[in-house]
């Protein structure tokens, strides 16, 4: 039973890491390679806030806000200029941003490893089904579920979501209807960047904070996005659950094959349902 | 060039629950121009797509000179003698008119594309391309990049690309759409010339033109053939009149 709980926590962590990437891809058609860098930045900012205020929760709030602002800036200064070109140019821009963000992080925080302690509220393990489960993992599950629900409501049910989807489905038409498409795009990119930072801040108490951390998650994020169906938030949730559970089982029975299990899922998906396991035709959110 | 008999047997095409074609059966004979008319959404382009292999056929068969082409891929149908032009111009941007035509000529002449010599060294191909260039009246524009051609000239290039495959059956999807009045006669003349020894299916919205150049008209409504016959017969068909005059928006 404890495997289920751990699997859930792996799943929601994965979802929190990948949600921003999915969102930006689905709504803007941009593959944001700098996603990992923004995630790292989120973790570093969280560390900074924890060091200054002592509160993880303030860090979890501030990191996404700062990174979202940065995302808006990236969109307004650079990405906006290449929307009318091939996807490759957007991809290249975000590639360039990886280098710039990495350098900035190094300049601001130096080369030393940083760490964020587990927040006191969730520092003690709890016993569930005969296993000691870190309570922070339970928090990750709850928080991940809340974020996915919020995203779903925002994109699928709110007026704002309709505007975003209209702008992404047909920018010209949306423009004609009086929607300021360029502001919507900025907002979406900022939201995606903020989500990356949430992923970073939530992960901060689990791993060492260092300059290579952004690089290490990007492939995982891509895998979630591909299996879920490109740009499909509900698909991303289901894909995260699938991978998280598969990995939990993998860690239990065949640890050294975990990475390959993930790839097998991915390649199977692309071979047999290239649009993603959970894609719904005509839907982007 | 012989043959070119195209036979459709009970062809059905469905997009999900929507039946785009239901039970098209007809025989198209060489040397004739067949005009497909009907309101938007009647299934004219879908029929061409089904014949050229762009959409899968749910049921039914298509035969080209008694060869079943239903299961063949697009390029295999072309090799079997089926040529096609598109409603939305599909030419190779970034290349000159002559290069466009040469590409078509190479496709027709070689199954495995030569890679051991520069393309410019294939004089026979160049000649074939130049012949068609003249046929479609674009000689003076030979070295112009294709995307800078006028709309009418691009339509002519479309037809030219198709001709280089030496097709026995030609599917022309609105080859005259957007062609200005001054070029219209030339374009009509072209179609009337190329029909010799070929079967031509033509979608065209200009009724005067269709009636003028078609030997037989097929009236399509809601994925079915409503009526067939000579232009004269069709013009006087009461069902067609009501379908057209009553339903045409």
């Amino acid at each position, binding site marked *: 039973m404890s495997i289920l709980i751990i699997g859930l926590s792996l799943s929601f962590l994965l979802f929190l890491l990948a949600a921003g990437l999915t969102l930006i891809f689905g709504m803007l058609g941009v593959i944001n390679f700098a996603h990992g860098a923004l995630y790292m930045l989120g973790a570093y900012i969280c560390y900074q806030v924890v060091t200054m205020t002592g509160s993880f929760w303030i860090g979890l709030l501030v990191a996404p806000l700062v990174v979202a602002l940065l995302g808006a800036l990236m969109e307004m200064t650079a990405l906006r200029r290449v929307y009318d070109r091939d996807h490759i140019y957007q991809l290249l821009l975000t590639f360039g941003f990886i280098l710039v963000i990495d350098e900035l992080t190094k300049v601001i925080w130096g080369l030393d490893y940083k760490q964020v302690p587990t927040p006191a509220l969730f520092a003690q393990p709890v016993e569930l089904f005969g296993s000691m489960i870190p309570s922070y993992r339970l928090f990750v599950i709850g928080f991940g579920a809340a974020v996915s629900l919020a995203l779903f409501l925002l994109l699928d049910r709110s007026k704002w979501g309709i505007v975003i989807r209209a702008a992404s489905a047909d920018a010209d038409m949306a423009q004609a209807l009086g929607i300021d498409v360029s502001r919507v795009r900025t907002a979406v990119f900022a939201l995606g960047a903020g989500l990356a930072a949430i992923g970073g801040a939530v992960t901060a108490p689990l791993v060492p904070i260092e300059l290579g951390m952004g690089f290490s998650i990007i492939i995982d994020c*891509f895998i979630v996005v591909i299996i879920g169906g490109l740009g499909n938030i509900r698909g991303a949730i289901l894909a995260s659950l699938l991978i998280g559970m598969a990995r939990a089982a993998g860690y239990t029975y065949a640890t*050294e094959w975990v990475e390959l299990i993930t790839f097998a899922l991915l390649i199977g998906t692309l071979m047999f349902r290239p649009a993603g396991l959970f894609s719904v035709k005509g839907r982007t959110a | 060039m012989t043959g070119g008999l195209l036979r459709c047997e009970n062809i059905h095409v469905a997009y999900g629950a929507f039946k785009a074609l239901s039970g098209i059966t007809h025989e198209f004979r060489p040397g004739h121009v067949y005009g497909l008319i009907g309101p938007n959404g009647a299934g004219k382009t879908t029929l061409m797509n089904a014949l050229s292999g762009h959409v899968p056929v749910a049921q039914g068969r298509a035969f080209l000179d008694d060869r079943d082409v239903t299961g063949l891929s697009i*390029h295999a149908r072309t090799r079997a003698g089926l040529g096609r032009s*598109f409603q939305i111009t*599909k030419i190779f941007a970034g290349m000159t008119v002559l290069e466009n035509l040469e*590409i078509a000529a190479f496709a027709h002449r070689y199954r495995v594309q030569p890679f051991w010599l520069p393309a410019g060294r294939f004089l026979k191909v160049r000649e074939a391309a130049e012949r068609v260039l003249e046929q479609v009246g674009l000689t003076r524009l030979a070295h112009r990049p294709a995307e800078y051609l006028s709309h009418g000239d691009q339509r002519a290039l479309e037809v030219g690309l198709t001709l280089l495959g030496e097709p026995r059956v030609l599917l022309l999807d609105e080859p005259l759409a957007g062609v200005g009045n001054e070029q219209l006669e030339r374009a009509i003349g072209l179609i009337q010339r190329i029909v010799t020894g070929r079967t031509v299916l033509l979608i065209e919205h200009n009724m005067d033109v269709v009636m003028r150049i078609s030997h037989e008209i097929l009236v399509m409504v809601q994925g079915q053939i409503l009526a067939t016959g000579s232009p004269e017969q069709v013009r006087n068909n009461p069902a067609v009149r009501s379908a057209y005059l009553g339903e045409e928006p």
Partner: protein
Amino acid sequence: MKTTWLGTALMGLIVGAMILVPFVWTGGEAANLVALILVWALFAIGFDLVFGTAGMLSFGHAALLGSGGYALAILTVAHGWGFMPALGMAALVGAAMAFGLSIFAVRVSGLFFSLLTLALAQMIYVLASTKLRGLTGGLDGIAGVPRPALFGIDLYDNDNFYVFIVVVFLIGLGLMALLRASPFGRSLRAVQANEVRAAQLGYNVQRLRQAAFVISGAYAGVAGSLLASLIFYISPQMLHWSVSGDVLIMTVLGGKGTLLGPVLGVAVFELLKEELSQYTQYWYGILGAVFIAATIFLPNGIAGLFAPRRDRDKGEGR
């Protein structure tokens, strides 16, 4: 995009001048750098056959580069093959690997092709670093990759090995020029320009793409071998997805779809890295800023500077 006759000549002059530098400035330093540029350029022009000419964004080319490198390293170090036969075999292995990937990858198109090649290549990276360690030496790689022995010349001297690399590069460049000008190359451009029309004209689009991918694999295989031989070493790093990203950046920076653009892109990329890292510790970030600026302001890459005006006004949005 096409460059003018004069532009091509000018680019050729620059590349020629670059190739000549190590002959003037001997001592191994220039030779090593230009050799590295030429090897990567070989990789990039092969990559561009798929990317710039056939219009498929492969994100799995690292797997082709690495498999070629490993083929040479394993055959020479573990099985005692001579260098030249091993180099030939590496080209075949690169091509075979490309063929293997293409069986899966050409089934999908567009972005899915990129993502599938990325995933397959990354899986090969994981396999080479862990499960195939008996063959590949795992993450430690294979040290002591040899250089060829030809006519009794000491090719361990970088200036001499450089000549060998120049010869291989020029052969590769010549073949690619021919390939691109041939009906085959034109048919690939036709597929990129309008896939539906190309199929309608009777081209077997999938087969053509597969052929381009396989040829590209052979180029990558040779480049990987030369790279391993140049640095005497190979590790799974050569298979990592960031290598696929690097070659993409270099190609776009130089100008995709042109013969010499990728070569210039590689040169500028490597020289920028080399020079910046010597003058500032912030070279990494500056490099990033340069990429961003180049992407925005040079949509057709460096080759765009040599193109007629109408072609360079706007990035070729496909």
